[in-house]
């Protein structure tokens, strides 16, 4: 068990294994996203109430799911880094934060655009949109805090603590915002709380959600590899890995 954790913690081992895993996740992401998009945009039936504007659900909901999941995985990575001092976990957390913020932005933007045909306004203090906005601020806080430190180790540990504090607060924020919303806007129409959705409508949604998750995993693997190169560029194994390539390239040139 301990040997496995240490192996997982070694950037070199992770660099190797992620190279093997990465293509599979990219392939899955492309396949699922293309299928889901075609199905959702062209083949799923229009909503009886919202018409074709309902097709925004296929980007809004996966982005919102991913935005929340990324924060949780960021906090878990932070915990792993703090407890076992596994540097790869912190590198993954560092590259997750901007993607999470981007996904939160996508969820907010698509929600705002969806609001125009549904509510007749760009912004409504809807419970889901409000908690997404707060989530965006939490992401920006983590990113800003990591950037504010000059020492990388302090930055990593501070960002880990803040991510963990944030993840404890997210459910509290979510429930209090829901409660606040129902108090002030009793019988209003929420975007996605649909009790019954026919199969040909929710199946493409499931495909899109899976596609977004595959995309997240593939991109995190790719950017964690870059982060490893950035932080370990003076390590011997990186030098050997890249040096071998340099020697080969020079051999090619002389031939």
């Amino acid at each position, binding site marked *: 068990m301990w040997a496995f954790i240490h192996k997982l913690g070694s950037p070199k081992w992770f660099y190797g294994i992620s190279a093997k895993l990465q293509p599979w996740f990219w392939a899955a992401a492309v396949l699922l996203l293309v299928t889901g998009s075609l199905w959702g945009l062209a083949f799923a039936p229009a909503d009886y109430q919202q018409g074709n504007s309902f097709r925004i659900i296929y980007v809004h909901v996966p982005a919102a799911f991913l935005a929340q999941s990324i924060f949780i995985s960021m906090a878990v990575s932070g915990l792993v880094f703090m407890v076992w001092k596994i540097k790869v976990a912190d590198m993954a957390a560092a590259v997750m934060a901007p993607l999470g913020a981007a996904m939160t932005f996508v969820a907010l933007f698509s929600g705002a655009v969806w609001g125009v045909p549904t509510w007749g306004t760009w912004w409504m203090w809807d419970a889901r949109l409000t908690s997404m906005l*707060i989530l965006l601020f939490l992401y920006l806080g983590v990113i800003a805090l990591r950037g504010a*430190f000059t*020492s990388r180790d302090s930055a990593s540990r501070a960002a880990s603590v803040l991510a963990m504090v944030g993840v404890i*607060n997210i459910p509290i924020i979510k429930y209090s915002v829901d409660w606040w919303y129902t108090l002030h806007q009793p019988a209003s129409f929420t975007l996605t709380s649909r009790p019954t959705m026919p199969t040909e409508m929710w199946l493409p949604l499931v495909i899109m959600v899976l596609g977004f998750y595959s995309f997240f995993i593939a991109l995190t693997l790719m950017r964690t590899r870059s982060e490893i190169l950035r932080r370990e560029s003076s390590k011997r194994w990186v030098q050997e890995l890249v040096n071998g390539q340099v020697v080969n390239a020079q051999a090619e040139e002389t031939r």
Partner: protein
Amino acid sequence: MDAPSVPLLEHQGGLMIAVKATLVRDLTLLLRRRGEVLNPLVFFALVITLFPIAISPDPELLATIAPGLLWVAALLAALLSLDSLFRSDYDDGSLEQLLLAPQPLAALSVAKVAVHWLLAGLPLALMAPLLGIMLALPAGSYAVLALSLALGTASLSLIGAIGAALTVGLARGGVLLSLLVLPLYIPVLIFGAGAVQAAILGDGVSAHLAILGALLAASLMLAPWAIAASLRISING
């Protein structure tokens, strides 16, 4: 080290003494710098003055927005004093002494936060009814306003101390501190302002106050560990 039971006893006996010493020391220090205690109160009154000027002097309109205004202004005033919570101790090195103390840092930091609440949160809560009169806050909600603020600012001090501890080592941590802490304040704001609103409408306020108490209990349980961990990061980094 050859008799482990003796240092352990000393340890436990020392905790209450250390907490009390931290309380007394921080209280004395803050009371000597009276400006730091008074400034948030003046800020609170000033912000409340700005709203009738910016919106309208109409008492009816002001009465509808008064609970939210009072709560937001109090929250910002409490936030204003957060930056100095660990700052002077960090600058003169006494924070390092606190870290080196054999007593658990979490307990000592709770003592520091308690002093902050006593001299920032509690005065704000006591002053709020006065400003409520100026905003034509309907009668019957004054006690609830003070009580909800007293309960709420305690949670705010605890949550805010995490942010203050994380940013104390940074040269320009002030704006960053508010960026980190304000999103985490939202649940307290919702239930605090909700309590005053419910009091005005004549609904029961016990549920709101109970939730504020629950939030306080939760932050009292979890925040000290986060504060201690953050202080270690800021000092050792």
